[in-house]
């Protein structure tokens, strides 16, 4: 029997730490009173109020108390476990206490914030929450973290600039890469682009990167190939790729989704006909072929973007519009170029400079109101010019519609296959908009490029490189270590009814034919507890959230 199991037989010795959070908590409830109260709770042997429990000083206090007071359970009443649970539980571990014997009570969000201005109520509720937390903690059991092996190989889906950049960086780090492109050529959307906003030809940039990628011995390139199936889990994904040479099965440790996006074809917008009213991408082709006969060009920005059906700003079309307007103006100085826009989205240093330069080149900019959009009618664009309060008719022989990038039509299928979410616009949804922009919530799967959200070539390249370090942070480790908050099925009482199996959203449960019971893959399990809620006989239970632990908490309410 190891130390951890011994704890189960010991009388609980609970330490409670009440955090003032400066004035965030103490300003709205009486922390000293709460701490006094905590002392009266069963099994509580030590209580301390801290100014900031999460500060180094606070952590030192916890560690000292675990050792000095021989604590075998720790409860911290402070802020949100989402931000601070890992810190506190790992601090417990550092002091020799199993991290799963830690319980957190949120008296900031749930007391001081929601009962602001009602000091007595907030204090009372904090006491009750702590009583519940203490009751639950007494029943907590030590858990061992789960380890598994790692395959040092990466699948990169999509051979555009983002995917190529990711593959390049990963190859430099010594990992094996499978780069899968659906079409016959690498390069993605950038292949259709004539010149880059930063100058230089898109083709030149692309071929440099593609040549490099294709010359690497540790990158295996597949064109005209589609990832058919992905199974398994972080460190051990099992994949099937449909290639020109038949089906390939392999194992990879991580997956990078760089499947990109496509420009909206503006059917039904502003009289789009592909000839006198064209899209930006079609203009790129015309410029590439040097086949521009128009004398007067009007660009209309936000064609199909920032509307009811497509609420987002596509980030890059203002820049592409201005870039092309400038190329037109440089090549054919006599062409009259106007840009009708809602907000010129030329963020950053270089793009704003383009806007200054474009004005300098004689390109005219006019604001239009989305409630009163420009009208395109046979050789004429009319719009309401708010600065003069007049309707202006522009003679024009070419209208260019700046359309947004939209998710690829097969994005939902990819999302479905990988079991990763998309946002309301159909772009892949990252784990956290600000703090984890390149990660999916599912472990071991990452996203970069325009499949995530429209990005310039530079941004897509940056993201591709960024993903490489996210992958490296996983695959450079010796093994995978995962939280022990997973479900377990008691093989003694399981009757193999498979109810849990159908309920598991992560496909972490399988049926063992020989033993006639259901079993859980702990690496795939995310600890959602669906199985535990479904199991008719309490055989499936979530570690740290067992019925007796939760009921003790409820009982103390």
């Amino acid at each position, binding site marked *: 029997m190891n130390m951890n199991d011994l704890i189960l037989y010991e009388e609980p010795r609970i330490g409670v730490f009440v955090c003032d959070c400066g*004035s965030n908590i103490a300003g709205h409830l009486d922390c000293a009173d709460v701490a006094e109260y905590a002392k009266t709770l069963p099994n509580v042997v030590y209580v301390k109020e801290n100014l900031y429990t999460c500060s180094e*000083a606070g952590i030192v206090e916890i560690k000292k108390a675990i050792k000095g007071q021989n604590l075998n359970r720790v409860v911290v009443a402070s802020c949100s476990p989402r931000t601070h649970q890992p810190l506190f539980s790992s601090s417990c571990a550092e002091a020799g206490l199993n991290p799963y014997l830690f319980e957190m009570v949120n008296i900031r969000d749930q007391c001081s914030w929601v009962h602001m201005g009602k000091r007595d109520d907030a204090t009372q509720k904090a006491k009750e929450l702590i009583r519940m937390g203490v009751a639950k903690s007494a029943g907590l059991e030590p858990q061992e973290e789960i380890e598994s092996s790692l395959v040092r190989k990466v699948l990169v889906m999509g051979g555009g600039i983002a995917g190529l950049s990711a593959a390049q960086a990963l190859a430099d780090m010594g990992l094996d890469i499978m780069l899968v492109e659906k079409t016959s050529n690498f390069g993605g959307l950038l292949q259709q682009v004539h010149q880059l906003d930063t100058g230089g030809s898109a083709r030149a940039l692309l071929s440099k990167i593609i040549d490099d990628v294709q010359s690497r011995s540790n990158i295996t390139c597949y064109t005209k190939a589609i990832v058919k199936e992905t199974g398994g889990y972080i460190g051990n994904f099992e994949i099937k790729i449909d290639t020109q040479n038949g089906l390939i099965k392999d194992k990879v440790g991580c997956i990078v989704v760089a499947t990109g996006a496509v420009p909206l074809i503006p059917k039904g917008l502003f009289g789009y006909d592909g000839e006198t009213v064209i899209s930006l991408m079609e203009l790129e082709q015309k410029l590439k072929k040097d086949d521009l006969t128009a004398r007067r060009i009007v660009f209309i920005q936000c064609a199909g973007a920032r509307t009811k059906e497509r609420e987002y700003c596509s980030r890059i079309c203002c820049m592409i519009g201005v870039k092309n307007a400038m190329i037109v103006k440089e090549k054919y100085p006599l062409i009259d170029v106007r840009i009708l826009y809602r907000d*010129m989205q030329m963020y950053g*240093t270089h793009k704003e400079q383009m806007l200054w330069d474009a004005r300098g080149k004689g390109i005219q900019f006019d604001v239009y109101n989305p409630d009163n959009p420009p009208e395109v009618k046979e050789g004429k664009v009319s719009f309401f010019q708010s600065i003069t309060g007049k309707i202006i008719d522009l003679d024009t022989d070419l209208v260019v519609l700046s359309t947004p990038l939209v998710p690829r039509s097969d994005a939902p299928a990819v999302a479905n296959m990988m079991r990763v979410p998309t946002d309301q616009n159909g772009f892949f949804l990252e784990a956290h908009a600000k703090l*984890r922009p390149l990660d999916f919530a599912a472990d071991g799967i990452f996203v970069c490029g325009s499949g995530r*959200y429209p990005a310039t070539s530079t941004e897509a390249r940056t993201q591709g490189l960024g993903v490489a370090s996210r992958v490296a942070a996983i695959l450079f480790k010796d093994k995978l270590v995962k939280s022990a908050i997973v479900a377990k099925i008691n093989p003694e009482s399981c009757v193999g009814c498979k109810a849990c199996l159908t309920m598991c959203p992560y496909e972490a449960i399988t049926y063992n034919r020989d033993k006639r019971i259901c079993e859980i893959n702990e690496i795939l399990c995310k600890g959602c507890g669906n199985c535990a809620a479904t199991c008719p006989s309490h055989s499936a239970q979530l570690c740290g959230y067992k019925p007796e632990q939760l009921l003790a908490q409820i009982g103390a309410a």
Partner: protein
Amino acid sequence: MLDVGRHPNITLLAYSELEKIEGEAGNFTAIIRRKARFVEEDKCTGCGACTEICPTSVLDLYNEGHAERKAIYSWFAQGIPSTHVIDPDHCRVLTGKKCGICQKKCEADAINFDQKESILELLVGAVIVATGYDVFDPAKLPEYRYTQLDNVITAMEFERFLSASGPTEGHIYRPSDRKVTAQIAVFEKKVKKSQKALDRFEKNHGQDSVEFYSAYKAGSLNANDDLEKDQDKWAKKYEAHLENATPLEALKEKAKGFTSAKNLAFIQCVGSRDLRFYPFCYGYCCMHSIKEAIIAHEHDNDTHSVIFGMDIRAVGKGFEVYKVRGGNNSNISYKRSRVAEITKNTDESPVLIYEDTLEQKVKRETFDLVVLATACEPVKSTQKIADTLSIDVDAYGFFKTQPADPLDTSREGIFVCGCAHSPMDIPESVAQASSAAARAVQAIMKKNNKKAS
């Protein structure tokens, strides 16, 4: 921040500067100057007892000067590392006076007034420059009268006002009002003191000061010997008392009308998109202003905000929806305009003069508080850092990179990310930081491979 602080592979060297870098990619030697904190890092627990007891107060720059801190302090409460530092310009001991009270108080015995700066030599394979940005000083724009008008503040100051741990605990009190409140406190202290002196006279002579003084002035004082002796002193004290008490009453009267600021104006592109200062757009301030306006509205549902901008640049993921929602749910209006001038009216309220481009009219509009969305400028020491590292600076004053290698500076093995690269928002910074890390690993592995072969 905590994760970084606790990561076994990360050594934090706060309060340190890079002096010199030698060698080449994969094999740099960095000379780092560790400044003297006068607090021993391995002893300090960050408990803050020293700060509590320190007698010297200094304006707190973390709170944009709207609050005070002590001469021994940590930059902000949850900072990492939590090791405190002594401000050598203000500490009594370090400026040659007598004190040392923190040293006596510190249980960890961490205070060391004799600490000297030290030099550290580090072998590194790659360098990532993430030195961030400075905030533009809007006082350079004469037309917005920043610093002359109390109720014109920067977005960063407003951010501190909105913070529950900030100088106003999240309430949006106007700086002009706070000034008055502070004055009241000063007068009250004085008045309390002089009242005490008057009380003594009143008790001794059984007479009210007002009565006494009017009789004294009128020369109708019915004085006995005792009073005769005291009367001049008493009168003088009373006059001194009035000098404070009269303005105190007036200020108190004025303060009765104070409420929190409910009518807010946000002015975009202050110092940016402006050829006098910075031509570029720094990309995040439209969203920042919208966020502040939404939070202000959350704090007080009566708040109304107007955001004055040339374009509202909501280019990031989910930003446009956020902007529209701000307009619909948080009482925010967006006005396409560049504000020409700010003046004030009698109650210190700022008055904006601008052309409403939709109505083609010049308007004057009064607000409770104006927030300037100030530009992000390259850090002042950019050139110095560039010289130390021998890397180039671009036309805008940020570290130079190439579009095809967006993280690489002009020197191999040195990378840049975040606002040191160019102005950008949080998601972009985070993504870029990951990329810079990848580039650094690439550089080191490349070097190792070469060595091996």
